[in-house]
């Protein structure tokens, strides 16, 4: 059994949590990985400074989709301010797998969309090399 594709990842890929549209929502953003065509959109409902609800949508590889699905489970209920500060380490720790430089971009796509949605800044550099 391959390490990167543990049951846990494949399970989230095949049955993603919090997948779909959220109407109405307060925040949203859409990100695209030109390298592989992965796309992730995120829609967020805010209440009392917290993420009251959140959905993601789009398509992509198992890593990007599973990472997004896993992350959403942690994000709902989190302080919006705090969520905006989440970094790559947080995401990679949640995934708990070793990820090559190329695939990092996949794993971090949801996080990039999240930050974009909250701060309006889409420039967080999840560049081709990091």
């Amino acid at each position, binding site marked *: 059994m*391959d390490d990167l*594709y543990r049951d846990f990842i494949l399970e989230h890929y095949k049955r993603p949590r919090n997948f779909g549209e959220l109407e109405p929502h307060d925040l949203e953003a859409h990100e695209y990985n030109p*390298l*592989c065509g992965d796309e992730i959109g995120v829609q967020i409902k805010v209440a009392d400074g917290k993420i009251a609800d959140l959905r993601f949508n789009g398509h*992509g*590889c*198992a890593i990007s989709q599973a990472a997004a699905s896993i992350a959403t489970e942690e994000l709902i209920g989190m302080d919006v301010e705090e969520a905006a500060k989440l970094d790559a380490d947080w995401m990679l720790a949640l995934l708990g797998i070793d990820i090559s430089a190329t*695939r990092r971009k996949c794993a971090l796509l949801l996080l990039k969309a999240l930050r974009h949605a909250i701060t309006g800044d889409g420039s967080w550099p999840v560049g081709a090399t990091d």
Partner: protein
Amino acid sequence: MTTTASTMTELDVRADFPILSRKIGGKRLVYLDSSNTSQKPERVIAAIDDYYRNRNANIHRGVYPLAVEADALFEAARERIAAFTGGEARATIFTANATAAINLVAYSWARASLTPQDAVLVTEMEHHANIVPWQLATAATGAQLRWLDIDEQGLLSLDQLDAELATGDVKLVAVAHVSNVLGTINPVKEIVRRAHDAGARVLIDGAQAVPQMPVDVGTIGADFYAWTGHKALGPTGIGVLQADAAVLEQMPPFLAGGDMIERVTRERSTWNELPWKFEAGTSMIAEAVGLGAAVDYLAALGMTRAREHERMLTAYALEQLSALDGIQIHGPLTADARGGLVSFSVDGIHPHDLAELLGREGVCVRASHHCAQPLMAKLGVPATTRASFAAYNVSEDVDALIAAVRSAQRIFA
């Protein structure tokens, strides 16, 4: 015709390619990404090494023996590279890569030639290198950008070409010789004939063709033929534009600086003769020497033989892949109609995941939009997985590919 592994053993040049003896995580390196970039034979690596170790000097300028030698090496490489594809040395221009060769035409020729009444015709199967330069050039000149469709099999329609040409406004047809995704071999000679009859110029993107099959730019007759060194067993950092010398003569220069000038005064400059008029600054000298060694290697191997070998591998791969469940193959269904590559999709597995899993088995394939997003849109996929062949591949490489795809299917089952 059934292709069996045993018919494929006639060409085995793996020993000429040092990297192929590398192990990846204990596994044999099964390199199936030559359409992306090729591996290099010992001869090419040694030529570059020898250049820097024993012959390095700047060219076109030096009087001392080392410089004279370097100049001779460089221009002799140009002669052999030009001859390899049947072109003239003076109309064979070195650029940074195929993309830069196409941009040379898009800046120098197109911006001086296109008007808002004109159109550029590209095809749905083009690489971004043969799309985006025309988007920018048509935007800059007000000309139209129009598209030729592909059919279900990934083929162009010459009738549609004729219909487009009949409108009378097409100034340039820009088309790939071999598609880097579908493998489709386009009837470039016929396209050139029809376009020329309609008064249009033709640029052929030969990035995939030159490494894979005999190419004779003289016979094809295009105004511009672009290709790239790193896919043709040569080094990175060098591309080739082979053009009609008469057309080049009339074009204004593109990149400006040393070597491309004849005379510079404060007020104005005049231009050097071909091919140097289009080569500004210090040339890619070691790269030309390396590419010269690469075409020597390919010429010695014989491009007809290389093509036949890759055709057989492609046929074998098509057959083996088709035998698996849940596989969709993109492009022409016969190996005769395509270059040495196969793009495919596997149900339920994203190409990125597939390539990752294959990579762990030592099998190197590309999973990507292959710089052909309009084609991906047409195919309705975000990306595909592509296995591509070169002279150094053997049937076991196809077997390894198939085994790895099966194993990925098991993981994602």
